[in-house]
Every structure is written in C-alpha cells, then in structure tokens.
C-alpha cells in the first residue's frame, strides 16, 4: 500500500497548492497586482477539463481494480503510480 512508501498526488493536488498558495512578496513590485487572483481562476478554468479527467484516475493504489477500470474507460490516459 502507498501509505508506507512515497505517497503520490495528482495534478489537482498540485494545483491546489501552486495556484492558491506559496510565498507572498509585497504587492507593489509584483506584476499585475490585481490580476494575480484572476490568473489563478483563469488557469483553473483552462484546466477544469483536465481535473475531472484525472481526478480519480491517479488516486492512490488501494483500489487497483477501480483504477484499472478507470484506465480502460478513459482510454488508458491514466498513469499508474510507479511504486
């Protein structure tokens, strides 16, 4: 089971962090101050289709059967975790 090894995340988990979080620098030297939250939203919209595509597909390996079925259903676009 994945819990003991390196657990894996999906693109959605990454987006939750990389778009909404991270170190903040004082606003007056940052490009497009007012636009920053908008960029996040914009990117989310662009990526929305992808989220649903991989949401369950990349889930951890505790339910292999489900994942295999998902993989077939989604034309094998689902990458299996390496471990």
């Amino acid at each position, binding site marked *: *089971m*994945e*819990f*003991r090894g*390196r*657990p*894996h*995340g*999906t*693109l959605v*988990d*990454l*987006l*939750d*962090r*990389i*778009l*909404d*979080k*991270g*170190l*903040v*620098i*004082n606003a*007056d*030297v*940052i*490009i*497009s101050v007012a*636009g*920053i939250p908008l*960029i*996040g939203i*914009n*990117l989310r919209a*662009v*990526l929305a*289709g*992808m989220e649903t595509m991989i*949401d*369950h597909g990349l*889930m*951890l390996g*505790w339910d292999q059967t489900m994942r295999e079925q998902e993989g077939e259903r989604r034309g094998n676009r689902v990458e299996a975790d390496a471990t």
Partner: protein
Amino acid sequence: MNAARYLYCVTQGKKKMTFGKIGIDEKEVFTIPYKDLCSVVQDCPAQPYKSENQEQVKSWIVIHEKVVEMVWKRRNTVLPFGFDTIVRSVQEKDAEDVLKEWMKDAYGILTQKLARLRERAEYGVQVLWDPKIIGRRLALGNEDLKKLSAESNSRSQGIAYLLQQKAENLMRKDLEREAEKFSREFFLKMNKYADEINVEKTKKSEEGRQMLINLSCLCVRDRVKDLGDELERLNAQDGFFVRFTGPWPPYSFV
C-alpha cells in the same frame, strides 16, 4: 528581455549559480543571493504567463514544480512561490535590485521560516466516506429508526411513504452528527503527527463518496511513517477512504 524575474523559491545558499536551462521557455534558472539566502529565478517578460491552451499551462505548472522540487532536494529546505509570481523593475531599479531589496527587508522572516521548515514536508490528507455504508451502520444503533421501519411495513402505501421520509431525515441527521464528531476527533489525532495543520475546503467527490475533511499537514519527513500507518488503519475500515499525498514542498506553510 530582462525586464522581469519569474520566482520559483527562496532557499539557503550564498553563491550566485545556475541550474541550467530548465525553466519556462527553456530559460536559464539561476540564483540571486542576499547574505546566506538566495532566490531561485529566471528571466521573463514583464507580464504573467497565461494561455488558453491546457497542455501549455500544464507544462508551465509542471516546470514550476520540478524546479522547486529540484532545489528542495539539493538544499533540503525551500520557501516555494506560487505559480506566476513575477517581480518587475520599478522606476530606475531593475527587477534584480527590487528582489534583493525585498530579500533584505524580509531577511529575518525568511530565515525564521526556513528554520521552521527544516527537514519538514507538506502532506495532503483527505478523508472520504461512503454515506450509504456508514448510514446503514448508524441505523443499526438507532431505535427510533428501527421503530419507524417496523411501523412502515404494517401501514398503507401513503403512510409508509411518509414514514420513510421521516426515517431518511433521521438518518441524514445521524450522518451529519457523526461526520462532525469524526472530523473533530480526526483533527485532534492528526495533531499528534503534524507540527502544523491547515484545514482546507472539502471538495465535491464522485462515485458516492463524500469528503469529510481536507487537511494540509506539515510533518517531519522521517516521522511520516507513523502518520501513514494511522491513515492506513482508517482506510481499512469499511466505508472510509483516505487520500494521502506528498511529500509536497511546503506551499501551505510559508
């Protein structure tokens, strides 16, 4: 061309050095030092990266994460920036000077943050349950529900329907109470394994599952096995599902 700097992260290091052309648009990723800290950056145009093309955006995000993880691996501790954090030149000061000035002003805070995050990583913990399975289990212990269902069996169709509605309401309330109780207890349990916890918004889940709690946990990397064991026990319980992700650079704790 050198109008602005795209920021990946802040880390320890005194030297000006390059990591090669691994950045967005195959630009060189390099450090801008101030005292014993440095920012990891690349040159970029003075405007945010945006595109309507999914694959394009995805590749930028993956590059951002790869650079941060690479630095993280080499330097042990990073303060990651979010995607598309870009510093521009201000009046006569170029972007690099602006960045150095910020590092100078924020030096104390940045140093403190780096010390707090040493040997630590962020882990995502999401707990979901299947309300049908849990609901059935709760119903077994609810005398009112048992009475209702016994009564509805002996009544006319119309009355039975109303009684059933009543039973469903009772079940929903039971589930809500249980979800609240579970989340409270689970959070306290996680406190034993994490230095810090951020409570994130729960997400809509599919396939009959419902997300009860969504946490970002800051944990000592070497001690995360205990957390994994605890989560594995929960995941083995009927009706519960745990998503455990990481180690992430500490995006939620900077």
